[in-house]
């Protein structure tokens, strides 16, 4: 793949007005990061990988692929993203593009595995137990995308809010408030109001 200069210029002109430099990688929008990647900024590429690694990896894992297979899909998705960087016309929908691409590559790998296994076993053999035919229903992918959006918005909050909401909602078991208060160095009575303030900020970032 080549970052064709003409294509770059043409696409760049469609997004005029987007300030990409200087860039705060944590706060930058997907559109800003994509624009910056197109201008050859490697740090923006790394920020995109960091931002989406969990989501892209979750798709093949959710379909039942093992770590190595999921790794194969993961690499293919990011290579494709790099190669198609100039063709993405809706950078603000990058999460959906990545999920769709990861799903296609997962399916492709699954069907390759199946055909390989059927050749090995032959028609008369017992059918092999393979992963579900439809391991990635739309609703599961939509949920993954939403979870990603929330996590990304959370990462944009200040440290205190991040810590508090993580302790409250991302732990298998929510620690007692006394423990949270001690860890965050705040009175136990402040947890409720702080949580509300943090939640308000989170919903604002989510555009809700």
């Amino acid at each position, binding site marked *: 793949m080549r970052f064709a200069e003409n294509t770059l210029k043409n696409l760049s002109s469609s997004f005029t007005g987007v300030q990409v430099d200087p860039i705060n990688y944590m706060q930058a929008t997907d559109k800003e990061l994509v624009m910056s990647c197109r201008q050859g900024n490697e740090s923006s590429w790394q920020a995109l*990988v960091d931002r989406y690694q969990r989501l892209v*990896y979750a798709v093949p894992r959710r379909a039942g692929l093992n770590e190595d297979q999921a790794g194969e899909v993961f690499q293919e998705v990011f290579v494709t993203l790099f190669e198609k960087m100039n063709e993405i016309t809706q950078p603000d929908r990058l999460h959906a593009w990545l999920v769709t691409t990861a799903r296609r590559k997962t399916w492709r790998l699954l069907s390759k595995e199946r055909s390989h296994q059927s050749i090995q076993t032959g028609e008369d053999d017992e059918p092999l137990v393979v992963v579900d035919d439809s391991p990635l229903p739309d609703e599961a992918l939509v949920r993954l995308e939403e979870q990603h959006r929330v996590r990304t918005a959370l990462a944009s909050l200040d440290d205190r809010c991040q810590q508090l909401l993580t302790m409250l909602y991302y732990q298998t078991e929510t620690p007692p408030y006394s423990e949270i208060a001690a860890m965050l160095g705040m009175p136990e009575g402040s947890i409720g109001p702080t949580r509300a303030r943090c*939640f308000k900020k989170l919903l604002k970032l989510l555009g809700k």
Partner: protein
Amino acid sequence: MNIFSPHIPFSELTALAEKQSETSPEATAHLAFCSECSSQLQLIRQTIGFMRSDTAEDAPAEFIQQAKSVFRRKVVAHGPSLLQVIIASLTFDSLTNAPAFGLRSQTTAGRQLIYSTETADIDVRVSPENDQWQIAGQLLGEDCPGGDVELEGDDFSASAELNELCEFSFGSVPAGAYKISIRTTDQLIQTPRLELG
């Protein structure tokens, strides 16, 4: 709800969403007719649900690293247009001791050529190898960023990687006119065509 606002305070909604507090009869009645408060409560519950059900794991660190390196690998391999393209000029030729672009086939001894840019020099040595040629060279500069080298002719082309000393070599090169391109992470240095044979 108080004298200043007809709605349930946001902090109370978050507590309700977590089911930390019993919904009072007033709040229940209010939620029944206030779509603003009930939809906000629903939104908070949904968001909490997304967080609590998010069991996605980080990709292994080596996968992430490989994905990050895609940018550099592809840039080096294919040379995006954003690289600074520099045409090096011939500043020394041991054969003529002056800029020259031809190398006669009857030349039997090795020949040294130096191509220069503002920031680096390329030392190229050409020697006959049976009926063909060997080209060896080195990118001279303050440091060696790594990269690859392409030898491009009309009928023959080859590529090589810069080693840790920024050296490269091509063997069994047939006669022809060749351009040498060295791609580092941020530069593409090209030489004028050098004629062999």
